[in-house]
């Protein structure tokens, strides 16, 4: 099992490979390999999606995947 932490200033749904998978700022489970992450339809964030290869993580060191709010820029 691999672990990711998708960060965003507010609480949002996280989509992994187009499927809803938990929320932002929580440690989420995923399998090893490349996955596409996004925050769903209300697109007030950038980048629009992130394609990330997840490997060699631990629950103590999840892979961080950051999204930023457009209004903050």
């Amino acid at each position: 099992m691999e672990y990711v932490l998708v960060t965003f200033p507010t609480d949002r749904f996280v989509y992994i490979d187009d499927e809803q998978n938990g929320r932002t700022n929580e440690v989420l489970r995923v399998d090893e390999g490349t996955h596409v992450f996004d925050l769903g339809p209300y697109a007030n964030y950038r980048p629009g999606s992130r394609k990330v290869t997840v490997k060699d993580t631990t629950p103590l060191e999840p892979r961080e995947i950051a999204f930023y709010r457009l209004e903050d820029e």
Partner: protein
Amino acid sequence: MRAPAALVVALLLQACGSFPPNPSLERYVPKAGYSFGKLELGRHNTDELFVIVTFSGGGTRAAALAYGVMEELRATPIGRPGEGARLIDEVDVISSVSGGSFTAAYYALRGEKLFDEFPDLFLYRPIQSELLREMLLPSSWPKLAGASYGRSDLAAEFYDRELFRGATYAELIARKTRPFVVLNATDMTTGTPFPFLQDQFDMMCSDLAGVPLARAAAASSAFPGALTPLTFQNYAGSCEYRQPSWVQIAIDDTPLRLNARRRAVAENRLSLAAALEAKPARPYIHLTDGGVADNIGLRGPLDALSSPNHPWSVVQMMNNGPIDRLVVIAVNAATGAAVERDQSASVPGLIDTVVTAADVPLGNYSFDTVELLGKAALENARDARLVEQCNRLSAARGAQCALKLPSARKVDFYPVQVSFGYIASPEERAWFRGLPTTFELPAETVTRLRAVARRLLAEDPQFQKLLKDLRNPG
């Protein structure tokens, strides 16, 4: 004289059987049909307690063991006294193979009428003799002479008439509630599990709703040699089907040598897809016994426990939060090795050697599959403990040192095993492990199998821990 002879030949050819084609799907609609997400929680079922049950192959021996486990689950009260909730109400998914698929499919169709109807209709019935009689009937011969009709097609007709009474997957969809029951066959060409769910049939542009449960059970239990494979038509390319986005991503990961299993699943999905000119590379899919690919019925659930890309991903449910306790009950009717050949110095014969060459790797694979379940539970517990320990150790050094590391949602995992190998008495264990694989067992044997299933489940340490934790939550 020539004309009547030609007429007779023509009539005979017309009488020759051909497999009943599975219906095509007019247009692909994601997650429609018989899919996990379409089923609602039944009364007394919660997502906090998520229960997966797997039924192995092994003919009537496996069907009876599975039935006994269902009896014990029904007899196990949970929750507050007086509410009437039982552990059987919490079963969310059943994954089955071969003999176990009959119990699973009947429960999916008839719910708790299983307990009134199934023993007489299947468990205590000489199914094997009746099937043989059916095959020897002169009226069956012309059908069996057809090149695309085999003994399993005849068996499917028998199950349809005598057990499932014409029911198709449309009736499971209409029931609307869990458990989600996945009957597994084996794709002969790829050697991979072929689960009967709409996600699988979507790739073939076929509508599972129109497939008789009897054909799914017959494919799942088409024991090689005794029964023939079953043919399904692949209409890929005719319904605007689109593979999920992860499939191409997994293929693209190949140079990175990451997650070979995910890539293999992706490649297997693409093997069913349309090739050139929107026509499938494999217009017919031949299915044999599910036990050839996985005789425990556990591979699908293991994938669901490890990947967010599975059609009923448990990882996805764990990420989304509702699951507190995850229970996997593996009901395994595997028998032991026969030792008769070792009583003699004679060189084992050809049949014995060929059967052994086919059977032993399957047994070893099943052993590894069950071991993977234990490893998955250990990994889950170890990862959860790691974060807890770090937080505890840092806090012990004073509030200013407390880390409060974020962690994945905690899920308590209970891997439960029902297997003859856990019978304490060597004599009793040997007796159960010496039972044959057949669709016909003496009534007393079936009754003993039901009883031992209940006992083995109740005695399992993880099962006992689950019941204790449910009585004392927190």
